[in-house]
């Protein structure tokens, strides 16, 4: 994939393709790779995807498409251990108020793996106007 990406960027640099075409090719390349991973079923997910789309029939709604590398989440979770003890309590209380009983500072890589497995394809409908999908790929 690295070579193919490099070729696309070289074509862009040499002016053979324009930026829109380069973007389409890069997206197609990534989608292709994601499809291959899903088919094999053995490859660990690389990205956490969050999609927010308006419900069918609703036009001009908000759209969100976020793709976060799992390794970035792993790296980010380690920073939670730097939150001062007294602040950890406040964060924990605030999360509990919202119904989330979770202590990020005690979360281990194994916990994250378990979360990813269980987060196979979560779909939430919000206020009937938007559909939120959270899944790994």
């Amino acid at each position, binding site marked *: 994939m690295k070579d193919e990406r490099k070729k696309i960027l070289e074509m862009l640099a040499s002016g053979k393709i324009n930026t829109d075409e380069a973007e389409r090719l890069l997206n197609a390349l990534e989608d292709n790779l994601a499809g291959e991973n899903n088919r094999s079923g053995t490859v660990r997910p690389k990205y956490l995807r969050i999609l927010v789309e308006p419900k069918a029939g609703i036009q001009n709604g908000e759209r*969100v498409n976020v793709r976060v590398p799992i390794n970035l989440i792993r790296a980010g979770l380690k920073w939670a251990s730097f939150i001062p003890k007294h602040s950890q309590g406040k964060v924990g209380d605030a999360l509990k108020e919202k119904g989330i009983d979770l202590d990020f500072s005690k979360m281990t890589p194994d916990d994250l793996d378990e979360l990813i497995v269980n987060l196979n394809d979560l779909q939430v409908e919000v206020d009937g106007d938007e559909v939120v999908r959270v899944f790994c790929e």
Partner: protein
Amino acid sequence: MIPMILQLKIPRTGKPPVNLYLPLFFIWLLLLPFALLVVLLMLIVSGLTWTTGHGRTILFMIPMIGALLWNLGGLRIDVKDRKSQIYMSFW
């Protein structure tokens, strides 16, 4: 892998958005001497504050900052509504 290119889309009214490809590899090269200096400074501060307990924290921060930057590749944020759009993608 550390991102080499940052793609930004700048929306324009009534026209298709402008695609900007920023060469991050060039920015990393420019920042490298500064980053090395910061790492050196952090190591010195870590050594000086080791007895207070903060030194260990500062020492662990060095690889954690590196891990964050290294794993930025692949991050894509695309938010749009009727009026505006925010798009950034790290390649």
